């Protein structure tokens, strides 16, 4: 308890965000701090920030693991959605990080008492998706399908936008969270309709290029809607629970619990529902799924929506711990991507475990060599790729 409660897991991702924005925002913290020093720079606690170097004892070890696991939970959420989207649509969803930032900043806007710019983006994306869906379905449109498309692409976003007008200026945390999820989740489907569906038959490489484009566009739009200022949101819980030598924050418990809930939810979705099995079938055998009447556009729309939902939720979970800027999501997304790659972009449990590993590697490397933290995390991918390329067979050129 007396050990060092101020490096508790209440603030794990702050360092990450700070480093993500380091080059542009002029901080040189990481480089200036010698390694083997406990740093508290972004934790903003009242305690003194200079400590003499000391060896890792078991308390610090525990703290770092705890830190890593909580970070890893977020990376796991990102990694799972990347695996989902890649296996179903072959898209490497680089814009996933933007959903994280949108989630955090939309909630922050509600908390600050103004209407988030993402509402306008939702309406615009919905309208664009409407046009794209009409173009894609031009040979088979009838009154019923036209109505369904209009409902999905025009009425739904209008209803959500209407809801943001109805609620009081400061809707409260719970309503704010629900609205945030409602705003960001459909964006996944619209993004798919606008940017990816026209490329349904393109190669993975072309889809990757489209992802880079979407990432840049959405980051830019994030700057327009939210400005260059970063935001934070209040934690879901202020509780601090002592647990042996550690202090566990209520927020980190929320993070772990919601991550577990999402994993359980995904498991139920794939294991027990027909629509979840249809997504899995599309991932296993695209042509086979089409021959069963499972449209890739439906599967893509659904998996993108799930990814956007998980992304927004991750953003909501991260926002109390660290200041989120319009472009913070990218680095969080990349770490999730590292985990997904370690899992081979195919295995859900593999990606989730790898995400925890990434979190722990990050925690330890920020303790021992903070300047090289990102380098170490991203280099972890190299031995994995080597091992995979040595072990794997030549690439089959199906599809």
């Amino acid at each position, binding site marked *: 308890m007396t050990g060092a409660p101020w490096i508790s897991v209440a603030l794990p991702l702050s360092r990450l965000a700070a480093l993500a924005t380091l080059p542009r925002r002029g901080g040189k913290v990481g480089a200036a701090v010698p390694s083997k020093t406990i740093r508290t720079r972004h934790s903003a606690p009242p305690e003194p920030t200079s400590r003499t170097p000391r060896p890792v004892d078991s308390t610090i070890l525990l703290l770092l693991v705890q830190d890593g696991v909580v970070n890893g939970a977020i990376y796991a959420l990102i990694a799972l959605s990347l695996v989902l989207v890649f296996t179903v649509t072959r898209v490497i969803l680089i814009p996933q990080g933007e959903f994280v930032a949108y989630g955090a900043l939309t909630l922050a806007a509600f908390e600050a008492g103004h209407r988030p710019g993402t509402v306008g983006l939702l309406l615009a994306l919905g309208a664009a998706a409407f046009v794209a869906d009409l173009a894609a379905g031009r040979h*088979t449109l009838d009154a019923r399908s036209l109505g369904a498309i209009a409902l999905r692409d025009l009425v739904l976003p209008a209803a959500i936008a209407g809801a943001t007008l109805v609620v009081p200026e400061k809707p409260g945390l719970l309503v704010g969270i629900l609205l945030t999820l409602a705003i960001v989740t459909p964006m996944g489907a619209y993004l798919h309709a606008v940017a990816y569906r026209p490329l349904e038959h393109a190669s993975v490489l072309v889809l990757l290029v489209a992802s880079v484009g979407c990432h840049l566009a959405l980051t830019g739009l994030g700057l327009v809607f939210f400005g260059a200022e970063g935001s934070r949101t209040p934690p879901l819980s202020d509780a601090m629970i002592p647990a042996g030598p550690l202090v566990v924050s209520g927020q980190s418990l929320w993070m772990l619990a919601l991550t577990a809930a999402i994993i359980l939810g995904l498991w139920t979705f794939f294991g027990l529902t*027909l629509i979840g099995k249809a997504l*899995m*079938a599309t991932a296993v055998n695209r*042509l*086979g799924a*089409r*021959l*069963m*009447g499972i449209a890739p556009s439906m599967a893509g729309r659904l998996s993108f929506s799930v990814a956007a939902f998980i992304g927004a939720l991750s953003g909501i979970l991260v926002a109390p711990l660290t200041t989120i800027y319009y472009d913070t999501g990218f680095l969080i997304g990349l770490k999730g991507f590292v985990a997904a790659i370690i899992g081979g972009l195919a295995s859900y449990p593999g990606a989730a475990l790898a995400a925890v590993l990434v979190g722990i590697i990050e925690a330890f490397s920020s303790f021992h060599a903070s300047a090289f933290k990102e380098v170490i995390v991203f280099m972890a991918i190299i031995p994995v790729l080597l091992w995979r390329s040595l072990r794997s067979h030549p690439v089959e050129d199906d599809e």
Partner: protein
Amino acid sequence: MSALLDASGVTVCYGKIEAVRDVGLRVEPGQVVTVLGANGAGKTTLLSALMGVLPARGAVTFDGRPIGRLSIEARVGAGLGLIPERRELFSTMTVEDNLRLGAFRFGRRERGSLDGMFALFPRLKERRRQLAGTLSGGERQMLAMARALMGRPRLLMLDEPSLGLAPLIVAEVMRTVASLRDQGVSVLLVEQNARAALRVADYGYVLDGGAVVLEGPSRVLEADARVVETYLGVLAAETGAQEARAG
């Protein structure tokens, strides 16, 4: 009688090569029609074009409705089914999940047909919890047929269902095809095993170099010298001719 499937002028190109050239083909309701031909004659390409897997020129109507511009999924919705040569099963999913997904277009209203399928293929019931990828070749073909039938197609297209299967299993596959006709399902059967196919079919087309070179009722084709020479061999010619005389 108006045809269930009526295709005319179907042409499929791979780049500059015409794999299927100006093919016309009709399947009447409740009829088993076979398409024969050597390797590379364009049989698989033709089926893929009819299903919308490959883009094609020409007119295709199904039940009087033009379907040439529909997606694969929309054709499934209209009542077409295809069992491709490679089966395209969901190999990492269980037999039961494969079957349930076969009825995807009906949503949750498929319980009865699952039991019906297990009655038709008892072997699949024994293996219902097994992964599709662990099945033997014959079982895979059974699963592919059962999965396609779960979607209750009005026309089922089978691409080389006997490929790589033991003779006993081929016979079982052909029995199933014949029983489909009794249930009112039309069948378009592509086969290299011409003898087995002609035995079960009502009508046949012979494809060569991507074009129809011969067509007629199965009995006539079985007796036709060109078919006999190319596909059936001398021994079959004798039995075929005898059967034709007897019939």
